[in-house]
C-alpha cells in the first residue's frame, strides 16, 4: 500500500512539474512563432505610425527603458536603505513589525490601484501630467516591496560572525556595513533588483494611468509615452494588429531576458 501511495504521489509531483515546464514552453513558443515574422530592423528602429498599425516600436522601447530605469533608480536606494535600517539599526520590534506588515501589504496591492494612486498624486496633484516621470515613480512604488524584502533577506543571511569579526578588528558599525555586510549581501540584493525589473518592465495598468499612451519618442521626463506593455495592450485590445502585438511581446520578453543575462554575467565577474 505504502509503495502505491509513494508511486501515486511521485506521479502527481512529476506531472505538476511537467505541466509547469509545458506551459512555459507553450507560451514562449506561441510568442516566438507568431512574433518572429514581425521582427525586422525596421520594426525595432522606427516609430509607430497610424496608431501602431504600421511602423515599428522604437518609441515604446525607449519609453520602457526610461520608465524602468527611473523606477529602479528610485526604488533601489530606498528599498536597500530601508532594509539596511531595519536589519542593522532599528532596535524597535514594534516599528519593524509595522514596517514589515506595510511592505507585505504593499506587495499585495493590485497594480491598477497603484495606477490610480499615481494618477491622483503624481499626475494631477503634483501636476506632472501623464509622463515618464509619473510612470517611473509609480513603478518605483510597486518595485519597492520586492527590493526591500529581498534586500532584507540578503542582509539577514550575512552571518553575525562576520560582523563580530569585523568589529573585533576595530571596525565601526558603518565600516562593517559598507566594507563587509553590503558586499556580502550584494548578490542577493541584485537578484531582488533583477526580479523587480522584470516585474515593472512588463507592468501595464499602472503605467497606462500614469504615463499615458501617446505615440512618439519621449524627449523629456515630462513627456507622455507608450511603453511596450501598453502598446501591446492597445494593439491587441483594439484589434489594430495581432502580429505586431506578438512582435512587441517578443521584444519585451527578450529585453527582460537580455537584462537578466547581463546581470547574471556581472554577478559572476564580481564574485
Amino acid at each position, binding site marked *: 500500500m505504502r509503495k502505491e501511495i509513494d508511486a501515486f504521489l511521485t506521479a502527481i509531483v512529476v506531472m505538476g512539474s511537467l505541466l509547469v515546464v509545458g506551459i512555459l514552453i507553450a507560451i514562449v513558443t506561441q510568442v516566438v512563432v507568431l512574433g518572429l515574422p514581425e521582427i525586422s530592423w525596421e520594426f525595432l528602429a522606427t516609430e509607430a505610425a497610424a496608431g501602431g498599425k504600421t511602423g515599428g516600436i522604437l518609441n515604446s522601447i525607449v519609453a520602457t527603458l526610461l520608465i524602468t530605469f527611473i523606477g529602479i533608480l528610485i526604488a533601489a536606494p530606498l528599498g536597500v536603505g530601508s532594509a539596511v535600517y531595519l536589519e542593522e539599526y532599528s*532596535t524597535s520590534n514594534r516599528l519593524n513589525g509595522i514596517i514589515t506588515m506595510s511592505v507585505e501589504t504593499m506587495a499585495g496591492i493590485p497594480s491598477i490601484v497603484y495606477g490610480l494612486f499615481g494618477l491622483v498624486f503624481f499626475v494631477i496633484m503634483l501636476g506632472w501630467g501623464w509622463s515618464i516621470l509619473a510612470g517611473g515613480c509609480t513603478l518605483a512604488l510597486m518595485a519597492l516591496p520586492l527590493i526591500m524584502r529581498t534586500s532584507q533577506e540578503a542582509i539577514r543571511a550575512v*552571518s553575525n*560572525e*562576520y560582523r*563580530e*569579526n*569585523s*568589529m*573585533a*578588528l*576595530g*571596525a*565601526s558599525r558603518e*565600516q562593517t556595513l559598507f*566594507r*563587509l555586510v553590503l*558586499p*556580502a549581501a550584494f548578490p542577493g540584493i541584485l537578484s531582488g533588483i533583477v526580479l523587480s525589473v522584470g516585474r515593472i518592465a512588463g507592468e501595464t495598468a499602472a503605467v497606462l494611468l500614469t504615463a499615458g499612451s501617446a505615440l512618439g519618442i519621449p524627449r523629456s521626463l515630462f513627456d507622455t509615452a507608450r511603453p511596450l506593455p501598453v502598446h501591446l495592450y492597445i494593439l491587441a485590445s483594439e484589434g489594430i494588429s495581432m502580429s505586431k502585438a506578438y512582435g512587441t511581446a517578443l521584444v519585451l520578453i527578450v529585453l527582460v531576458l537580455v537584462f537578466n543575462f547581463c546581470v547574471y554575467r556581472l554577478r559572476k565577474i564580481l*564574485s
Partner: protein
Amino acid sequence: MSEEKIKIEVRNLNLFYGTFQALRDISLQIPEKRITAIIGPSGCGKSSFLRTLNRLHDLIPGAVVKGEVILDGRNIYTDSVDVVELRKRVGMVFQRPCAFPMSVYDNVAYGPRLHGVRRKRQLDEIVEKSLKMANLWEEVKDRLHERAQNLSGGQQQRLVIARVLAVNPEVILMDEPASALDPISTARLEELIIELKKNYTIVIVTHNLQQAARVSDYTAFLLNGELVEVGRTQEIFVNPKDKRTEDYITGRFG
C-alpha cells in the same frame, strides 16, 4: 606570578546580561607574552570573560560590565578609552574560522585598510608578513587573489590569525580556536599559538583540557561565573588547591 610582567589586570569584574549575572567578582592577572588558558564546563562564563577583555559586550544590548580591566595600567572601561584603538591592541580569534567573502589578500588587508593604510606596497608587506607569522604564507602565496572561503578550515583559522596579526595587536584573545578543526589542523594551530607567545600576550578559552595543558603557561578555572583557581598550568593540573578544580580536571564533572 610575581616574577612576571603583568599585561592585563582584572579587578572585581562582574558581568550581567539583563538580570542574569554571568561573571561574579573575578580578579586575576594576565602576564605579558605568556599563554593564559581559561578552562571550565560549558556555560561557566569562559567566552563571556574573554569578551570583556576587548569590550565586545558593548555590542550586546542589555550587557553590563562592572569592575575594572586594566591594560598596561589603564582601565579599559573608562569613558575616555577609544574602543577602536582598544580592539586594535586586543585582537580576537573566534570559535569558528570566519574567512570574509573576499580574497585571501583582502582578508588580511581588511584591518590595515580600516585603520587607514592605503599604499599598495605597504599593504603587500603587511599581508606577507602576517601570513608568514601565521604559518600560512607557503600554502597561499600563489593563491592570494583566490576566494578565501576555498581554503580548508584549518587554513581559514590561520588566515583569521593572520588577519588579527595584520593590525599589529599586543594581546590576542582566542575563543576555542580549534574546536571546529580536525586533529592535524589543531596540532598545527597549537604550534602556531606557542610560537606567537614570543611577541604576543595570549588568552585562550578552551574546553579541551589537554590543549590547555599543552599550550598554556597559566590556567584559570571558571565555574558558574566564578573564578575558582588560577595559577601555573602545571600546578593547576598536577596539584590543584581547590577540590572543584581537581574534580573537573580528573573528569568528575563537566
